[in-house]
């Protein structure tokens, strides 16, 4: 392996590292933040659709039930999350990287 090749490989490593570092420190947390916000709104959406899960009667649960086949995965996860109050605070805390 020539010297030029070795320098090339070295530079590639460094640049990948730097990109990874940037991604981990700056861009990923930013994406994550937006994604968490999106998840929160989705939770609100689920709550508005299925308040009867928590005993609040909903005049439109008859209609929102139609959405369930397409929301199965979200629904189960959401239900579990909502029932577990401790984890809700924990989840909120996750949005902040100290």
């Amino acid at each position, binding site marked *: 392996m020539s010297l030029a090749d070795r320098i090339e490989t070295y530079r590639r490593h460094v640049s990948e590292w730097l990109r990874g570092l940037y991604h981990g420190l700056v861009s990923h947390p930013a994406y994550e933040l937006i994604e968490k916000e999106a998840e929160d709104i989705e939770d609100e959406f689920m709550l508005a659709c299925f308040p009867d*899960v928590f005993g609040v009667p909903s005049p439109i649960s008859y209609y929102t*039930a139609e*959405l369930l086949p397409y929301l199965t995965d979200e629904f189960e996860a959401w239900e579990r999350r909502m029932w577990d109050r401790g984890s809700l605070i924990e989840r909120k805390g996750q949005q902040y990287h100290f």
Partner: protein
Amino acid sequence: MKKFVFFGGKGGVGKTTVSSAYGLKSAKAGLKTLVVSTDPAHSTSDVFDQQFGDEPAPVEGHDDLWAMEIDPEQEVENHLMEIKRAMGDQVSPGMVNAIDRQVEMAHQTPGAHESALFDRFVDVMQNAEEYDRVVFDTSPTGGTLRLLSLPEFLEGWIERLLHKRKRSIDLFEKAAIGGREPRRMAEGDPIIARLQERKEMFEFAGEVLRTESAYFLVLNPDELSIRETGRAVEELTEYDLGVSGLVINKVTPEPDENESGRGARYLRDRCRTERERIEHIRESFDESVVAVIESRVEEVKGSLLDEVADELDVAVEPTPKSASQPSSES
């Protein structure tokens, strides 16, 4: 007269009789008429002595007259089955159980019946092109009023859901910049499509109920039904659905002059109080009284129905929109 005509009122005042008679009258005027019964205690079948089902069927012995009876119970069941079928297509069997409970529960809420009935209502309205006139014999006051107020209320609700869903998807898409696959996409999202579809349905229903429908209230000359009618008029006006007229049914017939027995005295007394009440109705309601129908000894059916139909002073001719050929005036 508008294409869709609703007859409402307190239980037992004779809505079915009046709406059947009106249907008959319309059919006799040459309009293809459909009578839709939404009362769970169906009696259209009794009036015409013929069993009707969920699909329009021609009424025997009458041209241009069709009838159907909506069974909300069955509608709820159909809706449930449809969702379960969609679930079978979409979801792995393992997950079905978790969701099943929720779906079942949604179909046992107090609103489920109303929603199912409402859906069928809208369905009938959407597929009523071949009829010139659709007469709705509705369930007693409370239920019907709630039903008619649904579109506006539900529209707002669906609107909010739609907004939330769109916002969360928008954020998911934003979070996916840099060539990553977003977790959810607005394009082809079945939830948005579904909600949009529902919203359009409610808008359609609201529009038809406000612009293409006429409402008549049936009452008897007694305090209870007069008061309930007053409340119904108020509520309907609140929803922007004006009442076109009142039908006073089951008025006691007056005895002949020369009769003086106990029965005749009783009838005369009764007639006097009823006349006062009818006067009271004419004075206190802004809506005009379109018919005063005497009570019959027998069940109103067959030829008696014709008589009642003649007594109805309700216009029959269709609205300008569909009135191309001259039809007989009442």
